């Protein structure tokens, strides 16, 4: 009978173990989130990441080995971005009836996200490469990676900053919007989708279906707008 360590070293070579553990961590995290009544601090992305980071640390597995398995999940970000056409299509009639507020919220949120982030980072003395990496952090991951690459930033760090932005947005959105006394679910959803992309959108869907739909609209349109605006805004800070 083979030793457990032998079985581990066999499994650790292939992609199956880390692909499976990524899904297991997410299922556990989702159950925890459900148990906590979807409280914002019980964010499934945050919990899954902490679980997996702990497992990598305990087994001394390098991130590149982990990613060989997890890349199959990561790859789906591209098709998922394309699939954002579905909520946009479904919200077509709504979007038409609220086109001016949507465009106002989108432009304000998008410009403020990029300008304020770059202004703070510039004031804190961050390098131009970090500024280029930070500029697209409010857009969805595959888009942010693409923008960071074309601006001369770091693509892996861009993905990391996107995730952090999403988690921050998902955590603060409900208390922040309550404090502002904004009750329009469309405004609440759109602003979160623009500022905090997919993680914010996933959070908005948990809170209210209208908010989720508008968050999807905000995230989809902001991907296009930030791609167009970020290069020009970045030039102001270099």
């Amino acid at each position, binding site marked *: 009978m083979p030793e457990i360590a032998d079985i581990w070293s066999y499994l650790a070579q292939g992609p199956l173990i880390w692909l499976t553990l*990524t899904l297991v961590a997410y299922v556990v995290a989702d159950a925890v989130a459900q148990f906590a009544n979807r409280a914002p601090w019980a964010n499934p992305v945050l919990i899954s990441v902490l679980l997996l980071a702990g497992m990598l640390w305990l087994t001394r597995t390098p991130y590149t080995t982990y990613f060989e398995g997890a890349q199959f999940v990561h790859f789906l970000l591209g098709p998922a971005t394309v699939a954002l056409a579905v909520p946009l299509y479904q919200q077509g009639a709504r979007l038409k009836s609220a086109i001016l507020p949507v465009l106002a919220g989108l432009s*304000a949120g998008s410009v403020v996200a990029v300008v304020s*982030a770059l202004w703070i980072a510039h004031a804190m003395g961050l390098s131009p490469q970090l500024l280029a990496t930070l500029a697209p952090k409010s857009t969805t991951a595959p888009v942010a990676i693409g923008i960071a690459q074309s601006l001369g930033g770091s693509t892996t760090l861009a993905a990391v900053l996107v995730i952090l932005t999403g988690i921050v947005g998902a955590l603060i959105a409900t208390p922040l919007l309550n404090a502002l006394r904004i009750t329009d679910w469309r405004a609440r959803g759109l*602003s979160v989708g623009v*500022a905090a992309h997919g993680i914010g*959108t996933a959070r908005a869907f948990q809170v209210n279906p209208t908010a989720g739909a508008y968050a999807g609209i905000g995230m989809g349109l902001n991907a296009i707008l930030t791609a167009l605006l970020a290069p020009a805004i970045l030039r102001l800070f270099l």
Partner: protein
Amino acid sequence: MIRALTLILLCQLAGETVSRALALPVPGPVLGMALLWALMSAFAPLARAVVPVGEGILRHLSLLFVPAGVGVVGHVSQLGTQALGLALAILVSTVLAIIAGALAFVAVARLTGSRDA
């Protein structure tokens, strides 16, 4: 289902190709999204086939961020003192962007008399 999935991948491929060929700042999947949106709006039967598959992919959108998120841990130690600047920029700009977006939406909705149906 397989046809809808094929169409989604074809849209992404077309988007990637156009984005590369014309050296556009807009990433391929975003062009693919715009293309799929246009196709769904033009052909209703096609939209009916794509909707359930697209909803299926988006239902667990959070899961798709996990692999990149695990990369956070390795980066934190490398950034050193710059990590503080990045954290502050992300925190403050996200708060400001949500406030600006929500207030701008509400203000213009009030001006134009737009209400949620």
